[in-house]
């Protein structure tokens, strides 16, 4: 399809833990653009007929789904599929992309977890989940996720114990007011350890070890009234 593209202003908002927009905690533009919302936002950019109403994916795992448009909107559906297949995004786009003629797509999470992989099995992974919605700081649930639910969001071969991901489940509110269930898992590409960090860790460890090596067994316990140590 050869359609004119129109300029749109974009805003990039800082993600905060309580942000209810789609950029809540994901912080990964690429992953976002691969997601259903990214595709919707992309379509907002590409489409030439503002009157056409775009629908969010009905699938629960929207991030892993090829988006389908309403039947009367086949051309847009084709365009969406092409975008999704090619993963070609022609402009940087924020997760709060705002069209001048529509409200931004927003995401209201019902549950959001930080997870870390415990084991990687033959066809699934098992992870512990920390409920960020409940502001927990330690795992409260354990989940078993089949690989088929992850194939489009991560290279399965990369999965290894200790990897961190964010998982949010909730509802998308589309510009037209439609509300759709939506789930997205994003594996976090944390920074690499740097040589400086490692050298610092080694130095601190050596310093601590030197301190603890001194007379640990012979150190007197803190004073205990009425008692003596043999």
């Amino acid at each position, binding site marked *: 399809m050869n359609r004119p593209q129109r300029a749109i202003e974009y805003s990039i908002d800082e993600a905060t833990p309580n942000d209810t927009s789609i950029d809540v905690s994901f912080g990964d533009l690429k992953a976002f653009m691969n997601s259903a919302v990214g595709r919707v936002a992309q379509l907002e950019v590409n489409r030439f007929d503002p009157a056409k109403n775009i629908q969010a994916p009905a699938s629960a795992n929207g991030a892993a789904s090829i988006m389908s448009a309403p039947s009367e909107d086949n051309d847009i559906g084709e365009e969406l599929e092409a975008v999704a297949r090619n993963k070609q995004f022609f402009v940087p786009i924020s997760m709060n992309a705002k069209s001048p003629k529509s409200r931004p797509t927003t995401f209201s999470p019902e549950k959001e977890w930080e997870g870390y992989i415990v084991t990687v099995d033959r066809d699934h992974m098992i992870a512990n989940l920390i409920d960020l919605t409940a502001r927990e700081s330690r795992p409260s649930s*354990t989940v078993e996720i*089949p690989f088929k639910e992850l194939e489009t969001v991560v290279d399965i071969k990369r999965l290894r114990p200790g990897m961190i991901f964010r998982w949010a489940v909730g509802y998308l509110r589309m510009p037209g007011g439609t509300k759709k269930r939506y789930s997205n898992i994003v594996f976090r590409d944390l920074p690499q350890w740097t040589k400086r960090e490692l050298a*610092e860790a080694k130095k601190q460890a050596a310093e601590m*070890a030197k301190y603890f090596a001194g007379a640990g*067994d012979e150190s007197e316990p803190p004073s205990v009234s009425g008692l003596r140590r043999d």
Partner: protein
Amino acid sequence: MNQNPLQCPASDEIEITVFGPGFGESIVIHAGNNEWVVVDSCIDSRVGRPAALAYLAEINVDPSTAVKLVVATHWHDDHIGGMSELVSECTSARFACSVALTRSEFLEVARVYTSRPLIVASAGPTEISQTLATLRARRQRPTRAIADRPLIRMSRAVTGGLDWEVTALSPSDGEVQRFLASIASLLPPGIPATTKSRLPNPEQNDLSVATWIKIGEIQILLGADLEEHGVADRGWTAVLASSTPPSGQASLFKIAHHGSANGHHDGIWSNMLIKSPMAVLTPWTLGGHDLPLPDDVQRIRNLTPNAYSTSRLKAPALQALPQAVTKTLREGNIKIRQSEPPTGYIRLRTRASSQGPSVWNLTASDDAIRLSSS
């Protein structure tokens, strides 16, 4: 089981309370005369703080003066949760841990994984690092636990009370050397071209500090997570081969390694324990795996009729998830459950003046179970 109101033990009562939420373990011991020992730490899921501190607060014991010794049997997540907070509040206690945890080989791993906390999920090395930092700020050094070394020895002759002592039974020198030689493998592979992650859960409990507690004539064996490998200088074989074994037999056993087969050695039951001792385990669940297994429960039942678990053996399903989550899980064939059962406890008391085999009076939380009826 009925949950009785918690009350502080009498001055001459010996008490041991084992907390176990399903992924964690903490043991609180009253040695008499308001002197306490805490072995390991876990978070009480009911209150979200270290189980030992929550318990002591509940019975109006001041940890800053009453706790004399805190032991970290090893650095795995399930035995170290909240340890830094525990040690911070037990300001007059000495802290004991495996000698290997104070060596630069381990401390480097701990520093690497805690140098920049980018994630919510902390791990065992973080707790150890924070604990050691607290000690250093106090200008205190840990008591380094190794096989056959007393961790604390209290003489109460002056006040007419009972002498009491805690002795480490492990790790052996061989275990320590093996650990230090292998610890570098826990550093991230391919540094510096490796992205940060949480430290994966280690598989072996090769540094676990099993302890022998003697209070007057009452003897208690805490098995920690010590495993058996069938090798002379490792695990329970090394403990049983000690040239200075504990004298006497224990009437109370905290079953090793959550009742698993690899924590079992026949010699423990024949040499170190009285017949039909009181035995308590904490269940363990992680990544879809549970301990003890049904075979383990049967084995323990055959060894003593007095075996208990601090909580249910399986974590229950999650309740009351939002509808969007429930549908998502169902459509994706995703299985989710609680990480652990609710925190439960087994509390045992006996009189310090008891002669011969101790008679332990048991109180348990509603979540605790007797293995013979599980």
